């Protein structure tokens, strides 16, 4: 050890031009982590926060105590949603590149997170998502055309043109509005869960943040409140290794796992293979059941990789090796589930191709329909006067007066 203090600046294992190096990731073979009882004390299961729950092994078999035993048809459904998420994202990305929407964010490589967790939760459970959880919305019944209309800020936009693309919400689907500010939804989920407990209901809440956003104060507020009141909530950290250009070390991930963040407060943490749909599903069901039985919150770290750019506004080749994704040791979530289904005799390459073609057609049809409700350049357009609505429960005089003046000036 040096004999004077020093300022440590975290550095990722590889920058552009370097060979990708994921040796920093603590991995464990599938099936090697035990599955504790639902009422296990946090102090007895601390090891779950440093281990890695995996079900799918290198030979694509489902193994170990966390194998949730989903049947083939459920797995095919999961595969369908992940694939839909990917195809939807790819189309929307192209649409943004064509200048037809202003912005987009894809979930490439992280699709298993939202799909597995949507499957594991009940419809009455409330979701407080981040901006890469689009599959939650899809799984819970939002129409693709409505999601596209949101991205277009057109006449059918659920947000009436007030939000950046991808900041969806789903009242009927029990999914809260995406903020655009980071981690603010975390304490909301805890408060929602506290209210559920106050009312004596057995609905739980779930929220998602990225590894980078765990540095926000709201993350820590949420953990404290969740622990103090034993709120029935699942707090997820999607550790996709990158927060725009800074790697997870800049959120404090160099020396300890993100799943361990709650241990000091007595919140159990589980580190799970975020590209293994079966493992995510099993861990989420465990945490949900524990919460529903009064066991309080669980912190889940989903270890995955952001295969795409942060958003359409950044170029990842400027800050990380171009082919880093290919070297990620946990592979690709869709490919892994697909190979598992093939290996158990319930899927094939040709069925996969057929499904892809179907989903592409579905997305294309939705896009055609969405444009009928207006695009950025062609009407019908939203009435700008609507910008003065929904600020208060009833619109106060000064806003009505500004609305009238705006209409006068704009000639509408």
């Amino acid at each position: 050890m040096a004999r004077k203090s020093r300022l440590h600046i975290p550095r990722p294992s590889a920058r552009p031009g370097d060979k990708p190096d994921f040796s920093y990731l603590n991995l464990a073979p599938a099936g090697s982590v035990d599955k504790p009882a639902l009422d296990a004390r946090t102090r007895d299961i601390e090891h779950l926060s440093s281990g890695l729950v995996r079900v799918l092994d290198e030979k694509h078999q489902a193994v170990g105590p966390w194998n949730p035993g989903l049947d083939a048809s459920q797995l095919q459904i999961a595969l369908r949603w992940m694939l839909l998420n990917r195809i939807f994202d790819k189309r929307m990305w192209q649409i943004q590149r064509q200048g037809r929407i202003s912005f987009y964010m894809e979930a490439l490589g992280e699709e298993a997170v939202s799909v597995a967790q949507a499957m594991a939760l009940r419809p009455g459970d409330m979701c407080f998502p981040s901006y890469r959880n689009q599959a939650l919305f899809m799984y819970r019944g939002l129409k693709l055309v409505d999601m596209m209309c949101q991205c277009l800020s057109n006449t059918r936009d659920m947000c009436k043109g007030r939000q950046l693309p991808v900041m969806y919400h789903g009242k009927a689907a029990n999914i809260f509005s995406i903020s655009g500010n980071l981690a603010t939804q975390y304490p909301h989920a805890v408060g929602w869960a506290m209210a559920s407990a106050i009312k004596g209901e057995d609905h739980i809440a779930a929220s998602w943040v990225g590894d980078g956003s765990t540095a926000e104060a709201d993350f820590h507020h949420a953990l404290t409140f969740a622990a103090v009141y034993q709120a029935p909530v699942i707090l997820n950290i999607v550790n996709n290794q990158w927060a725009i250009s800074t790697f997870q070390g800049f959120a404090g991930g160099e020396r300890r796992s993100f799943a361990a963040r709650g241990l000091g407060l007595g919140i159990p943490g589980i580190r799970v293979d975020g590209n293994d749909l079966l493992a995510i599903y099993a861990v989420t069901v465990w945490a949900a059941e524990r919460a529903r039985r009064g066991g309080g919150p669980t912190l889940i770290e989903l270890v995955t990789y952001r295969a795409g750019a942060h958003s359409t506004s950044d170029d990842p080749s400027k800050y990380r090796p171009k082919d880093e994704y290919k070297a990620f040791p946990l592979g690709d979530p869709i490919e892994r589930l697909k190979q598992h289904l093939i290996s158990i005799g319930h899927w094939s390459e040709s069925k996969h191709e057929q499904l892809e073609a179907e989903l592409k057609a579905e997305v294309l049809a939705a896009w055609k329909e969405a444009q009928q409700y207006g695009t950025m350049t062609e009407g019908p357009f939203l009435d700008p006067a609507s910008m003065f609505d929904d600020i208060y429960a009833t619109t106060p005089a000064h806003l009505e007066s500004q609305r009238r003046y705006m209409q006068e000036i704009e000639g509408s």
Partner: protein
Amino acid sequence: MAQMNMVEAIRSALDVMLDKDPNVIILGEDVGYFGGVFRCTDGLQRKFGEHRVIDAPIAEGGIIGAAIGMGINGLRPVAEIQFADYIYPGFDQIVSELARIRYRSSGDFFSPVTIRTPCGGGIRGGQTHSQSPEAIFAHVTGIRSVMPSNPYDAKGLLISAIECDDPVVFFEPKRIYNGPFDGDPNKPAVSWASHPKGEVPQGYYTVPLDRAEIVVAGDELTIVTYGTLVHVAKAAAEEVGVRAEIIDVRSLSPLDVSTLANSVNKTGRCLIAHEATRFAGYGAELAARIQKECFYNLEAPISRIAGWDTPYPHAFEWQYFPGKKRVANGIRKIMGEG
């Protein structure tokens, strides 16, 4: 009717609402077992239980964030921030979330949180227990900002705030919790018992959230003020011997412009008085609006009396506080006598 000071009136409002609506809950530091550092929630946990009146960790951002989540789940949380000076860790949750949820979700979601917070100086609180940050919140669209100046209004406005589907930041001028204060710290304390607004109904009633009130009618000058300064302004006008119309703004945002404008159009003179710092303060908005509505009837420039643009110093509290002398000077100047 009963005699109540402002603390009792606020407690009575909370009591009435906890009783009336099972979705009302209270969340804040020391609000439960102890009953609040200013005693506003004294006895409420005993009466309504630990699930309704909840002691919170010392994390204002967490209190407001959790309250927002509760509101989304159908509750009507009343969050207490122990001093307005402590509210800033929750500022992002108020500005980026609470104020915007209805808007960004096109009305699909909203969270009817009321945030109660004691503000203002005059209690030897130094620069971290004396601030009046109302202008910062009045600037934020999507929330209402309210500051009562007496027990009757405090109870009626707080009930309105809790019942309102909009988020409300409810500022409680703590110097006048126990009695009206005319700005002279050397005089013996006066209790609310001697003030007509210390008479408060014991049950449910409301005071509207969007109305200013003419506290004293007059025709020579309009003094637009709120909070503790309502009482200071009244004393100062009496000292100068001017027939001032004194208006208590009460609801800072949205603002009742017409009550203000009607008065100034009548008197032709307007003095604005608040305890908060002057620069880009709430008085600037008042002056701009009144100037626009009343320009052709003004006989003197609109003038402002405010706290100095310094932090609130512990040792020089009474030199900082815009007391009777400063307000009286302002009145004389605007009347052309200064």
